[in-house]
């Protein structure tokens, strides 16, 4: 790996501004790295020629006003990109070319960045290991047999391996934070409504949020700044001023109250995770924060609630894939048979399971028992957080109950896969912002992350606390390149 692609995003942007290197030079480096790293299977679509053209245009214009001036960025293939194939990791969209650009990617381009490629992900973002993608599983640069996490697995792998200087993912139940934790990178899920969902292939609309994935906390603040904001095209996006996350970024967190929820000390959690959590507490104490024990009593019901609400919304959102207006179409004797065959051929196993669960819990006679019940429990889970935030400014937990696991280890048992999201799911159910920041390694030298959960629209506080942890954990990504 070359020197430039080891620089942080912020360093790259400053380097371009100060004419240490051109946009074209750094773009070529990331393309070179990407071309050498096919083993990781991080890309679904490469846009290398277009990226070089954009870089050359940038170098001619020399317009440094944007936050991301001159930077190539590869994004999860769930964001619709105008005239560039967008698959959502699914066969049913294998040939779909959007005629429009998602608001969030458009925001990045308005700040001077340009598209490097579309990154692999679990099919329709349904998965925690990137194994459900129609385009094959992604490899974690931390080990040839390891999953990168999911669903933003291609994003996490590409970022950790130096194929893109930063990326964006989406997080419905942990799909940014869990892969960030598995790859030693920083991932932030913003408050529901902070970023527009317009132009993102929908999974579960009341849970989905796009967010940044970066090599450090400073870069994270920068990308979040660039992508956030109100969008009239998404009626659930928040018409609230976006803070200046970069100029307000500080590791001075003295006096902030941090909650430690006892319910996150789950059964069979490895000692290493518990020890990492204790270290995190020490780091924040050292930074002058005040630690408080809190209780989130309905945490144990979060996964069950999620696996009713998310499939219910998914079954409704994915009804649009019928082989008529776009995507894959199968043959059929009549219209209904064409629909049924198209959806049978086009969707993978996990997506089918979720559509069927969702259809079941919404079907006549079961709606009250499952869906309505889940929405009541969801309210109770949210109330737990609301109550806690009367006493604390943020909450510290581990990001995941384990480090990256082996390919194939959990893919045969859907429920064991679901348990991976135990610490991340409650945050989506409650619409809160949360970040995963790398904080250490386990005995197998695999990275582990800590999660900080914030109050609604208080992304600044969780960024600042992450910075305080980052400075103290002194996490180094000691990766030998074996995947070229």
């Amino acid at each position, binding site marked *: 790996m070359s020197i430039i692609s080891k620089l942080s995003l912020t360093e790259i942007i400053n380097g371009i501004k100060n004419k240490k290197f051109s946009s074209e030079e750094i773009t070529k480096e990331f393309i070179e790295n990407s071309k050498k790293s096919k083993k990781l299977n991080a890309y679904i679509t490469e846009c290398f020629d277009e990226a070089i053209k954009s870089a050359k245009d940038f170098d001619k214009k020399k317009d440094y006003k944007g936050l991301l001036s001159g930077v190539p960025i590869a994004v999860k293939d769930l964001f619709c990109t105008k005239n560039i194939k967008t698959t959502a990791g699914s066969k049913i969209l294998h*040939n*779909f*070319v959007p*005629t429009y650009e998602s608001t969030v990617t458009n925001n990045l381009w308005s700040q001077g960045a340009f598209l490097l490629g579309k990154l692999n992900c679990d099919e329709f973002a349904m998965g925690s290991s990137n194994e459900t993608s129609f385009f094959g599983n992604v490899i974690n640069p931390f080990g040839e047999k390891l999953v990168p996490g999911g669903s933003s697995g291609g994003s996490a792998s590409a970022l950790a391996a130096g194929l893109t200087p930063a990326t964006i993912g989406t997080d419905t139940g942990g799909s940014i934070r869990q892969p960030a934790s598995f790859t030693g990178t920083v991932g932030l899920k913003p408050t*529901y*409504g902070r970023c527009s969902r317009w132009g993102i292939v929908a999974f579960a609309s*009341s849970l989905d949020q796009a967010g940044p994935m970066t090599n450090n906390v400073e870069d994270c603040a920068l990308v979040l700044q660039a992508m956030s904001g109100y969008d009239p095209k998404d*009626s*659930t996006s*928040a*018409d609230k001023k976006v803070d200046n996350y970069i100029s307000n970024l500080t590791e001075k967190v003295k006096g902030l109250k941090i909650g430690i929820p006892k319910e996150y000390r789950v059964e069979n959690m490895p000692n290493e995770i518990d020890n990492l959590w204790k270290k995190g507490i020490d780091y924040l104490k050292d930074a002058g924060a005040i630690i408080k024990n809190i209780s989130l009593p*309905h945490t*144990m*019901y979060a996964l*069950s*609630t999620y*696996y*009713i609400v998310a499939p219910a919304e998914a*079954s409704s959102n994915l009804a649009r894939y*019928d082989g*008529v*207006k*776009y*995507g*894959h*179409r199968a043959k*059929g004797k*009549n*219209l*209904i*048979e*064409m629909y*049924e*065959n198209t*959806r*049978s051929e086009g*969707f993978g196993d996990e997506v*089918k*399971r979720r*559509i*069927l*669960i969702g*259809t*079941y819990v919404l*079907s006549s006679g079961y709606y009250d028992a*499952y869906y309505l*019940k889940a*929405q*009541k*429990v*969801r*309210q*109770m889970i*949210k109330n737990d957080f609301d109550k806690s935030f009367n006493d604390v400014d943020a909450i510290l937990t581990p990001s995941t109950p384990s480090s990256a696991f082996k390919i194939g280890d959990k893919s045969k*048992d*859907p*429920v064991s896969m*679901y348990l991976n999201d135990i610490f991340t799911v409650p945050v989506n159910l*409650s*619409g809160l912002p949360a970040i995963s920041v790398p904080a250490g390694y386990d005995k197998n030298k695999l990275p582990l992350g800590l999660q900080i959960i914030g109050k609604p629209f208080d992304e600044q506080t969780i960024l600042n606390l992450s910075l305080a942890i980052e400075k103290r954990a002194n996490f180094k990504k000691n990766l030998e390149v074996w995947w070229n």
Partner: protein
Amino acid sequence: MSIDKDTVKHISKLAKISLDEKKVDSLSKDLTSIMRFIENLNKLNTDKIEPLTSIINASLKSRKDEVVDGKIRDEILKNSPEKNEEFFVVPKVIE
């Protein structure tokens, strides 16, 4: 709660996904284990709780009802698996 094969067939009809016998069998097992996993919710008394209807507190804004885009028929048709001039084509519906 178990999801037997007949139930799988019924909901796959509702969801418009055709399944062969083997798939029905494996889905019946998978969905049963997922529904068992979900069942701990029944232990919780929710009688006095209002269901959550929106995760954002703000009420939705109203806007003027005006056309802001359009005239993109040809672009939209480009992605269609089968089209005929300005129409999407589907298998015959009326005999």
